[in-house]
């Protein structure tokens, strides 16, 4: 099964629930487990939060693009912003790192994304924006149980 979707929305935190529900609805065709659904919703939320709070620094004029590609049981997610970019991606993805300590954020967003997905890459350029690409193979438990 191959399928694709793309949505674009304003960089407002109230759109996070829309973003995660949109992806969860789209991947329903893969018959995911509850755990898989929760994982995909959480990683979408983490990446979209980063785009809004760090990429656009809560400038609601910004636009977040969300793409989801299904190839057989492989899901690829892209969360794209045209915001300020990340100066040091390696540093930003370290556990507990936050560039905004005054907001008392947990600094665990990337840790959670890495934990819930099979693969994550972050492409960022200062002044141009950030693209987070995440991949995960679905129905692995079901495939194992049919062996």
């Amino acid at each position, binding site marked *: 099964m191959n399928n694709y979707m793309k949505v674009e929305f304003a960089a407002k*935190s*109230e759109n*996070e*629930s829309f973003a995660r529900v949109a992806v969860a609805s789209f991947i329903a065709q893969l018959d995911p487990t*509850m*755990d898989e659904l*929760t994982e995909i*919703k*959480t990683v979408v*939320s*983490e990446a979209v*939060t980063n785009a*809004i*709070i760090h990429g656009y620094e809560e400038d609601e004029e910004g636009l977040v693009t969300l793409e989801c590609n299904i190839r057989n049981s492989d899901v690829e997610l892209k969360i794209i912003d045209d915001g300020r970019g990340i100066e040091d991606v390696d540093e930003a993805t370290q*556990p507990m790192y936050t560039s905004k300590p005054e*907001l*008392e*954020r*947990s*600094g*665990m*967003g990337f*840790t*959670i994304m890495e*934990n819930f997905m099979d693969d994550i890459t972050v492409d960022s350029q200062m002044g141009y924006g950030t693209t987070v690409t995440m991949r995960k193979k679905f129905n692995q438990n079901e495939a194992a149980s049919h062996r």
Partner: protein
Amino acid sequence: MNLHIEDYKQNQTTVIKLSGEIDAYTAPELKDKLLGYLNEEGAEVHVDLEKVNYMDSTGLGVFISGLKTANEVNSSFKLINLQENVYRLFNITGLNDVMNIENTVRGDIK
């Protein structure tokens, strides 16, 4: 979906009962409420997460703030009735070692 916050006194303890989802949109109101209670010296707060079916790292940030405040002013709080998927976030980030989480998790802990 929004977050519904209900708070009441039970003997000497303040219970904050939550239902809904905790994310960047809903977390600020929770943070204000939680820190408001924890800023009182000696306060004891229970945060009931039984009806929280979704939380992301923004929620973790709120509870880290709560822990800092509690340590500063000598108040305390604990998280109770976590659903399995919510507990999992504390587990994979190691925060279950520093947070006071009552052992009433529903479902299997992974």
